[in-house]
């Protein structure tokens, strides 16, 4: 039998069934075994869509195809189209009969679908090339688009197609919005209404409004006010995902834990659309969840939308220069941030040129610039200004009332300007103000508090109030000399950065106080070994003692040799470290000014050549940093002689042992020698056994040496 005939007959049967369904639809109940066929409707509908379009394209391109092939091709496509269109339409009826769909959309979809299947069927009987064929074909293309669109609306919900590009209506919520409107409805909209809406009422349930939600579905009301456990809405949500009755169904977006808690809390509270957040106690779980959600909603709003236009990229570009930054922080918002820097470089054009973007400026920082009262009027021409920083500008506040033109101005900083309480009136005329900062102005912190009382909304921030602060300790005096190893006669200079501070000092090792010598001119270093100084000033506590040790430059040996290897990690700059006239800082013990020993003792031989000077004393510079296991040497020995191998012990010293943690210090042992040998050997032994009170008790300590002096 001819394949065309088979299809023709099959389609005839299908078409009769469609007609039958169309007439008797409301009297029929589709048997369950046909339901799977119905559910295949969304699958097979793609065939007619593609085939009809293909047919259309073939028709358009027929002059480019050889006549014979074209006829063949068209015929096959046509029959395939007719067959799939009819079967799709029929299956559509099965699906609709299953229930859950209703409304106008379904109606339109049904009629366009049926009409399409009839017209396409008719195409078989019209000869190609006739006008009728062309018209029929064109109308099927239009019909398939229409039927397809309304079908998709049924599946995905109203407005699905255009949703991404439609302006979103933003819900403004606050404490007085009913919890249902603020919280619950958006959740239902996001997770439920795509299947439970007026056109697709799965289970006869429409959740698109509160009233319809209360009406329930085919199993009756879905919630029991005040009882989440008994509400079938909750029951279905808590069912395991695999369960057939679980909602939302497997494969659709599920409720988050937070959304679950919110719906549960809402039902338990009463489940109505009246009660608001404000009516809940703040300890309530629902309140906390809901508040968090509202915060999140308002946060999304952080990308604040403005209805003014974008400034063009070239305008923004042209306004940026070395001293002025004009920036559109977010690509999707037209708001601009403007800052101008460097007082000395300021020219009035930096401000006046901003008129090109007057509408877009939302935040303006002019701190430290020579902005005067008359500039305020110009600034007031920025209608969308929200934040204005005028700290340390030259304004007096006389013209601040002009800013009432800026109806969005929320934050105004006037710190360090000459404004006084006279600005009160001007401020109250700027209705949108939320905070004004007047720290370091003529307005005292007390006056700021008084002004605060006059305003209902704005906070007047007086900032730090130094009068209530307890007197602080002054910082110690500073020494201007970097070197601690000085040539005899060098001037030593002390200073303190705070004006009118007095410095008292001693050089004999005793602690200075206000009866000690007052520093008035640089000191001459002759014999100063130990300098101690304090700083004092009215209304301040006297400083702690600044102390330092100076080492006067003595004789320098011809060479120094280290005879025991230093620790691998702390070799300093080798033996020359010891005579480089540089004292180190022991907190930086890994610096090259220090040589460190742990396993060996420190041992160095100094050579003064064949004509040695008379040496009275030798000073060994060392550091103490107890937490880092760096202690004073436990034993120091000095040997002397005219030959390195035959030196004799001149003196051995056992320094005192510390009994507790001491502050870091850089110090020196003085050893009297009074000889004139060519060679001196200096040995310093590290602690081998740290004392009981130390964190590393029993472990070996370190010695760190930075310099040797010979006087």
């Amino acid at each position, binding site marked *: 039998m001819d394949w065309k005939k088979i299809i023709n007959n099959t389609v005839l049967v299908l078409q009769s069934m469609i007609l039958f369904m169309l007439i008797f639809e409301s009297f029929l109940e589709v048997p369950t075994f046909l339901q799977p066929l119905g559910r295949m409707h969304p699958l097979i509908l793609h065939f007619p869509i593609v085939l009809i379009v293909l047919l259309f394209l073939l028709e358009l391109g027929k002059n480019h195809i050889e006549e014979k092939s074209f006829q063949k091709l068209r015929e096959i496509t046509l029959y395939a189209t007719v067959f799939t269109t009819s079967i799709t339409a029929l299956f559509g009826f099965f699906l609709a009969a299953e229930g859950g769909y209703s409304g106008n959309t379904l109606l339109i979809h049904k009629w366009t679908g049926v009409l399409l299947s009839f017209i396409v069927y008719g195409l078989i009987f019209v000869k190609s090339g006739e006008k009728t064929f062309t018209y029929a074909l064109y109308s099927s293309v239009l019909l398939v688009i229409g039927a397809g669109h309304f079908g998709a609306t049924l599946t995905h919900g109203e407005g699905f197609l255009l949703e991404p590009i439609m302006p979103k209506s933003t819900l403004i919520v606050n404490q007085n919005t009913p919890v249902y409107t603020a919280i619950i409805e958006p959740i239902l909209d996001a997770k439920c209404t795509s299947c439970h809406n007026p056109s697709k009422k799965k289970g006869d349930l429409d959740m698109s409004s509160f009233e319809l939600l209360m009406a329930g579905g085919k199993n009756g009301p879905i919630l029991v006010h005040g009882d989440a456990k008994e509400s079938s809405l909750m029951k279905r949500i808590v069912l395991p995902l695999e369960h057939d009755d679980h909602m939302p169904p497997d494969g659709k977006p599920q409720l988050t834990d937070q959304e679950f808690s919110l719906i549960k809390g809402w039902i338990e509270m009463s489940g109505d659309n009246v009660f608001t957040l404000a009516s809940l106690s703040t300890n309530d779980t629902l309140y906390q969840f809901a508040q968090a959600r509202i915060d999140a909603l308002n946060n999304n709003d952080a990308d604040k939308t403005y209805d003014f236009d974008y400034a063009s990229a070239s305008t923004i570009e042209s306004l940026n220069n*070395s001293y002025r930054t004009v920036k559109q922080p977010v690509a999707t918002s037209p708001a601009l941030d403007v800052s101008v820097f460097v007082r000395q470089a300021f020219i009035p054009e930096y401000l006046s040129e901003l008129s090109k973007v007057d509408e877009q400026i939302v935040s303006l920082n002019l701190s430290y610039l020579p902005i005067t009262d008359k500039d305020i009027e110009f600034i007031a021409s920025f209608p969308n200004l929200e934040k204005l920083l005028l700290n340390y500008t030259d304004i007096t506040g006389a013209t601040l009332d002009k800013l009432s033109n800026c109806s969005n101005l929320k934050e105004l900083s006037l710190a360090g300007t000459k404004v006084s309480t006279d600005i009160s009136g001007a401020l109250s005329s700027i209705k949108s103000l939320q905070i004004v900062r007047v720290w370091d102005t003529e307005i005292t912190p007390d006056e700021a508090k008084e002004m605060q009382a006059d305003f209902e909304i704005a906070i007047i921030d007086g900032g730090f109030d130094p009068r209530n602060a307890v007197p602080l300790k002054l910082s110690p005096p500073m020494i201007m000399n970097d070197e601690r190893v000085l040539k005899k006669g060098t001037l030593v200079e002390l200073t303190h950065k705070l004006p009118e501070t007095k410095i008292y000092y001693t050089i004999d090792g005793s602690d200075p106080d206000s009866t000690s010598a007052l520093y008035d001119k640089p000191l001459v270093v002759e014999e100063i070994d130990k300098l101690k100084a304090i700083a004092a000033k009215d209304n301040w506590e006297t400083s702690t003692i600044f102390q330092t040790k100076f080492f006067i430059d003595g004789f320098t040996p011809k060479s120094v040799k280290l005879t025991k290897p230093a620790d691998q990690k702390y070799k300093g700059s080798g033996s020359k470290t010891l005579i480089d006239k540089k004292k180190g800082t022991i907190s930086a013990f890994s610096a090259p000014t220090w040589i460190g020993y742990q396993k060996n003792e420190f041992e160095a031989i100094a050579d003064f050549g064949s004509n040695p000077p008379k040496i009275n004393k030798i000073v060994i510079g060392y550091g103490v940093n107890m937490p880092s296991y760096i202690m004073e040497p436990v034993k120091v020995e000095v040997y002397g002689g005219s030959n390195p191998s035959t030196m004799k012990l001149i003196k051995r010293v056992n320094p005192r042992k510390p009994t507790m943690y001491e502050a870091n210090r850089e110090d020196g042992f003085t050893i009297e020698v009074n000889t004139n040998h060519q060679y001196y050997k200096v040995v310093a032994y590290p602690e081998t056994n740290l004392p009981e009170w130390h964190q590393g008790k029993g472990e070996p300590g370190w010695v760190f040496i930075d310099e040797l002096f010979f006087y």
Partner: protein
Amino acid sequence: MEKEFLESRLNVNRRHFLGKVGLGLGGAALGSLMMPDLFGSSKVTGDPTLGFHHFAPKAKRVIYLFQNGAPSQLESFNYKPMLNKRFGEELPPSIRGDQRLTGMTANQSKFPLVGSKFEFKQYGKNGTWISELFPNIAKVADDICVINTMHTEAINHDPALTFMQTGAQVGNRPSMGAWLSYGLGSENNNLPAFCVLLSRGKGNGQGVYSKLWTNGFLDSVHQGVQFSSSEDPILYLNNPEGADMNTRRTMLDKLEKLNSMNFSEFGDPEIKTKISQYEMAYRMQTAVPEITDITKEPEHIVKLYGSDCLVPGTYAANCLLARKLSESGVRFVQLYHQGWDQHGNLVGEMPGQALEADRASAALITDLKQRGLLDETLVVWGGEFGRTNYCQGPLTAANYGRDHHPRSYSIFMAGGGVKAGTTYGETDEFGYNITKDPVHVHDLHATMLHLLGMDHEKLNFKHLGRRYRLTDVHGKVIKGLIA
């Protein structure tokens, strides 16, 4: 750099051109696909490239007060009274679990618990626990958000510090400030976008190295600029004797002509860079003295920060300078304050160390606030890890020490859109393990970038064949920290 690439493309040859054209068309199509709101809004939006935030920023700038050496969380913000009750008792092995120890305590035979020798009290509207060592920070409790559940992967200073600063323990990745300079650019063209200030406290210190403020594989303009701790924070800014600004200007103009001639001949972009750097140096000559001159600060500023702020190189002076730099639009000011490594003698050392840090840190927050800058400046305070709840070395009634502890530690943030006046995260009663809301270093980075309007997954740079991020392949934004 982009511009130079564009300029160099003006010299493309034919094959180059054909090769590029395909990509270009595809790119244009893809670009229009990815352009948000292309059809939703008829308005012209800017080009969403670097320099644009990914979303609205809460903070514009960062001041990171790095407390180098790891301050003990148990003597600062994490109140664990049980440790005092169980003084001297052994740390239960179940609590320690499989935590590795440093070489300093691994051989210790006992791990006796020790509680804080310093009193804790609650401050602010939400009762933030703060120890008596930080009385001034306690006063700004309503402005700070304490995180008690920071945790890290490293257990020794250098890798932990490097991790905290660059998101990786090895020292070759760009530092946070470099990423920010790369992502957001400079706010004030007369100053570097990323400045570094160092200070050293009285306590046991650990080193800081320039790799911590490196630009890594990013362009070297993003490298942190270390300020000198001397009287002149930036050296060689003054004109030499006998030269004034006019002479300097004339000289630069002449030099610019010569350089431009050279550029038109060779087209080397480095010549352009050189011209612009000379210009920037010229502008810095006026911009920097305005900022670094602290003699004009009123006396009550000195009273706020403490008179140490007049002594260059101190923490207080650096906090003051940080405010001045940040106020002038420096994107990222990084402070390092050394001296928090209390392995032993904690009771002796920590009060002195805290005294210096407490007043100036709190002063900075107050000072930013009274100028209307705190809401746009993110201040972060904290170290590289925490300290153990057991004693290192001999435990006496009067003194103890604490070893390194990476599993939980405390930092705080202020301003810049953080949830002020709150405490985030919980640790167990031993202060050892996190029980609720952990914040990993990568999470902190992700959150910081978020506050600055950057998506940490989008701020990346292609290097050696793959894209790198500050958070590498980790990190999530902690919403609980954001107001």
